[in-house]
């Protein structure tokens, strides 16, 4: 049984446009993701495809003007706002993107200690700092005194000390030098090998491929494909969705050829398949109705032409 199951998730925001006119902007539509214990799922996609919102929706920390529909199950149980509140930081931990997520006026050590659920907080914090090669002097520092790499490790340590079973890492790698990055990725692999489930949200496909077990490809607020990592090879023949193939071929080490056009804005989504306007395989049927996710060859895809 998957530890985390997101089904048919849609998120929209109520916004005031001109004057008092309200507009409902759909940013995530019928999204499916499943996460198993002991595995790393990488969520990849361009910026603005709704990756971070997925993380916030799972934790229940979306802004007040967000409307959420669909279901999120944790250990087979349906999550409600109150169960989400009791799971946050205990069972499900978030590793955010940057130093901005640390309180600027609180010493780093204290911030890590607030995440400790049981036992001696100071001991736990010192142990994890040692494990991540952070000197003990770092605990007395304020966030503005940390280097990029130190800040990431401090954020990482908040998740480690919490003993959470599901770890959601939101863009943990940008700005890290290769050595530190490799170390961070190895830490995630270690989490998974210890029985945690890791959701790695990133637009860095290369690093995702290095450690992930499965890849979920996002496009315009929905998942277009869920594939085992082995399928990302060669010319992308094993991939199911035309967007995943295009994404794979656009990488520098592959063809380095981009496809024309750009991801549609949430306020201006096409009817039918969201990728149809840019797809070479699109037929008239594609623009009539958004295809459902289907199982194909040990993966899932949202395309009626996929084989």
């Amino acid at each position, binding site marked *: 049984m998957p530890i985390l199951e997101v089904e048919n998730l849609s998120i929209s925001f109520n916004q005031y446009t001109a004057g008092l006119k309200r507009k409902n902007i759909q940013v995530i539509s019928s999204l499916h993701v499943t996460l198993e214990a002991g595995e790393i799922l990488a969520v990849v996609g361009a910026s603005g495809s709704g990756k971070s919102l997925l993380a*916030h929706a799972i*934790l229940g*920390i979306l802004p007040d003007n967000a409307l959420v529909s669909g279901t999120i199950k944790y250990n087979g149980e349906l999550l409600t706002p109150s169960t989400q*509140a*009791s799971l*946050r*930081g*205990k069972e499900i*931990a*978030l590793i*955010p993107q*940057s130093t*901005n*997520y*640390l*309180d*600027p*006026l*609180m010493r780093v050590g204290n911030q890590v200690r*607030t*995440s400790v659920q049981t036992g001696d907080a100071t001991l736990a914090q010192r142990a994890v700092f040692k494990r991540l090669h952070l000197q003990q002097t770092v605990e007395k*520092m*304020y966030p*503005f*005194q940390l280097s990029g790499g130190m800040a990431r490790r401090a954020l990482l340590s*908040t998740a480690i000390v*919490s003993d959470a079973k599901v770890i959601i890492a939101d863009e943990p790698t940008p700005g890290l030098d290769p050595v530190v990055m490799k170390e961070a990725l190895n830490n995630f692999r270690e989490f998974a090998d210890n029985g945690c489930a890791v959701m790695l949200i990133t637009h860095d496909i290369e690093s995702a491929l290095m450690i992930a077990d499965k890849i979920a490809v996002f496009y315009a607020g929905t998942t277009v494909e869920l594939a085992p990592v082995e399928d990302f090879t060669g010319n992308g023949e094993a991939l199911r969705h035309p967007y995943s193939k295009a994404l794979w071929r656009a990488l520098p080490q592959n063809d380095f050829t981009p496809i024309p056009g750009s991801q549609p804005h949430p306020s201006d989504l096409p009817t039918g398949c969201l990728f149809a306007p840019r797809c070479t395989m699109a037929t008239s049927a594609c623009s009539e109705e958004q295809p459902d996710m289907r199982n194909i060859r040990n993966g899932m895809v949202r395309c009626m032409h996929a084989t």
Partner: protein
Amino acid sequence: MRKMLLGKLGIFLLLKGLRMLTLLIAICFISFLLVKNSPIDPIQAYIGADMLKVGPEQREKIAEYWGLDQPVMVQFLNWGSALLAGDLGTSMIFRRPVAEIIGERFVNSLILMVTAWVLSGVIGFVMGVVSAMKKDSWIDRLIKWYCYTLASTPTFWLGLLMLIVFAVWLGWFPIGLGVPAGVLAADVTIADRIEHLILPAITLSIIGVANVALHTRQKLIDVLASDYVLFARARGERGFILFWRHGLRNVALPAITLQFAAFGELFGGAVLAEQIFSYPGLGQATVEAGLRGDVPLLLGLVIFSTFFVFAGNLIADLIYYVVDPRTRESRMI
């Protein structure tokens, strides 16, 4: 490291002292020129009603004796050097040294201003915090409405209103003055003084509340929308714990600094409030000195208030410099 910090603090204070000095010189010079060019005739102001008995020759004699026939710059330097020697001159209304009057009045005003300052700071901060934590609720609307109304209320008008309601209609408080009328100075009790203090202090603090409350509200709303509060919520923090750990420390410092920087408004408010309540403080003395052409007292008060407002701003700067870790610890590196 501590020694280095103290050294830097010394330089900081030295620079501030220098700025204070230049500011004072400029203020002294400008006020002197303004008074010099005002229609106040120092001789007439000094002699008062006996002016008719003084002939033109006698006038000239007095002018010569006071050095009024000399060029303006020489007069300024004469006044300035007396000032440096600590002699602020003699008040014409009170016929006593200016320094003595300012000292005495300042004690009265200080009690009033400190009470109003602490009250408005604490109440305003709490109101701002409640308002931000319950944003868009009825209590937030109520507090906002109250603050906007107060922010646009003149002190003297509110003072009159308080006087009408609480002193005249309800008779809870005395109508004015700092001590009861017709009682020997030796018989005035502390309770008497406090009774006379309450209305002006409340008037002054009610006005000050709006500023702190609205500022704290906005700042806390920004803090609550920040990434670090989002992350704190993601770690399971909420409600009061969240505010205590992340809200308070990020909001308190700006609020305290704002309160110190508001010394100028406090002084300005005191001038009006003291006038309404006939409270014998610095503010009332300022109005008297201005209306009755008491030049030495007026100049003394100008210098003193400059000093007072500057001190408030200096403390505000100093608090940021010493308390905020971002400025404190970056200097140590």
